[in-house]
């Protein structure tokens, strides 16, 4: 069973100005089961759009997303194909991911009844099981979301996703909105669940330090394209693309105290996606850019075993 994202592009039209925005420009990913792909990138890089494509919330303008060689998006019914609830999404904001007027127990039982996974009589037991599995005491089942902390709510969201027994969990910035100490607990929960249930993860974040802890494969995105991808060791131990190197350098590191980390920051800002720069989108900010970078489109090419980058200047 593998997730295959082939040459996915997504274009949006901004209503007021009519401008065309390319949120994704030909993204290709192959992820075997039980593996975890970490996708890192800053705002506007298209990582959340990709999450919507993988979970079938929206249809790609071009390219396909298949799980187990079955298309995620059912073109006929113009919605996600029902037989694929094997892919679930966990959201960033714990405050808007649960229905405020629904008790958390009801949220879980609703999934179980809709998918008829469990006999009606066995539902309460299954709910307790799910809650315990994510570290929430079952007697909180009758509580409303606003009576739980951010960390607890995020755990309930994970439990709801697990209720439909998925194979692939897409985690879109799952811990970014949590406090530092709570973040560690939820990360450990995700790592334990993966081992116990043999899950495949796509972990999306702007925070490279979280990505390090959980990923097997890494993909670095910039303005709708993958600029570097490969195994954990390749990308994090031996980053080659200038943007990846700038990202790693910009990570605040509490273990290196008092030295001047902020001497050479990456210049400039992410360009407006409606006015994409020509050639390599990073060339305006890139420390090693040459004139031809503004002309040639950079495609991913293999630099070493399981390590691809999209940059002509790096040999």
């Amino acid at each position: 069973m593998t997730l295959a994202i082939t040459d996915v592009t997504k274009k949006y039209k901004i209503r007021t100005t009519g401008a065309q925005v390319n949120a994704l420009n030909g993204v290709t990913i192959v992820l075997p089961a039980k593996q975890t792909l970490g996708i890192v990138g800053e705002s506007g890089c298209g990582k959340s759009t990709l999450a919507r494509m993988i979970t079938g919330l929206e249809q790609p303008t071009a390219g396909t997303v298949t799980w187990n060689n079955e298309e995620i998006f059912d073109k006929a019914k113009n919605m996600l194909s029902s037989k694929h609830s094997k892919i679930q999404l966990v959201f960033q904001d714990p405050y808007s991911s649960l229905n405020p007027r629904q008790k958390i127990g009801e949220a879980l039982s609703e999934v179980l009844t809709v998918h008829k996974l469990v006999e009606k009589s066995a539902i309460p037991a299954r709910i307790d099981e799910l809650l315990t599995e994510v570290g929430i005491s079952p007697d909180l089942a009758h509580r409303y979301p606003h009576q739980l902390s951010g960390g607890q709510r995020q755990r309930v969201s994970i439990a709801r996703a697990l209720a439909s027994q998925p194979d692939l969990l897409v985690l879109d910035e799952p811990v970014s909105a949590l406090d530092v100490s709570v973040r560690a607990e939820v990360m450990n929960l995700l790592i334990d669940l993966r081992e116990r249930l043999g899950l495949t993860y796509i972990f999306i974040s702007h925070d490279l330090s979280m990505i390090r802890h959980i990923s097997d494969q890494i993909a670095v995105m910039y303005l709708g394209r993958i600029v570097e991808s490969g195994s954990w060791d390749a990308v994090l131990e031996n980053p080659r693309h200038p943007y990846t190197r700038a990202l790693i350098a910009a990570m605040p590191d509490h273990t290196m105290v008092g030295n001047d980390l902020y001497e050479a920051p990456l210049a400039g800002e992410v360009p407006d996606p409606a006015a994409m720069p020509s050639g390599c989108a990073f060339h305006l900010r890139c420390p090693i850019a040459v004139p031809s970078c503004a002309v040639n489109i950079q495609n991913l090419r293999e630099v070493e075993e399981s390590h691809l980058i999209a940059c002509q200047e790096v040999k």
Partner: protein
Amino acid sequence: MKEKTWFSYYLKSISGVIGGILVLVMFTISILSALGITPHDPLIQDPVNALQGPSAQYWFGTDQFGRDILSRCMDGMRRSMLVSVVAVSIATLVGVILGIVGGYFGKFLDGFVVRFSDVIFAFPAILLALAIVNSLGNSWIDTSLAIAVVYTPIFIRVARGPVLSVKEMDYVKAVRILGFSTPKVLFSHILPNVLPPIVIQVALSMSWAILTESGLSFLGLGTQPPDASLGLMVSEAQSLAAFAWWTLAFPSLFITIAVVGLNLVGDGLRDSLDPARRSS
């Protein structure tokens, strides 16, 4: 800890409680009058005691034909409440359905729904009601229909707005990914979260409906004599008020109390239904 019901929050809001009492009083009066329990028969004339001030026999005094003003006010209130309840329920039903369907499904349907409500919004309420009533007639059903047509777009807007924002919330996306059918998503996830503004609007619209109904009958286009209606009584009192203040004072008081009561209930609902405003 026993989870607080909505009602316990409602009782915390002073305006909600006062409003509730006023509205209850007005409802009881309407029901009593519907059952015929009024101090005097609103239609029987007593020319001998015409235009008498408030007295033991006639608590609110009598009008130019010697009819008991209190009984006529009760009957008038019944009529206003009836029209307001019927009109607002129709407007809510039609408006909310159109609003939610337009908001959720969008594209062509949404365009039509918005255009339709823009058209009706282009008419000041009283004017549109006036035009419709003159075509239909003056029975309370016609007035209710006229007011219902005027308020439907308000409910379209009050329902459509929140649906557009709730539709984008993560928990709606989550249940869609979980494969829930559209009706299930609509009824168990979208509707419960768009109800509060609608319920508040029902209370406010009922108060406006009373104003519009009495306005119409003031202009002589609503209830026809000799039946009693608060607007008509005020209209008849125009020439009498100089020397018989009670003919003007009591019908006006009834209308104002009903409208104030419903507005306060609207505030009470707003304080209790909106989680952010709930005092912790």
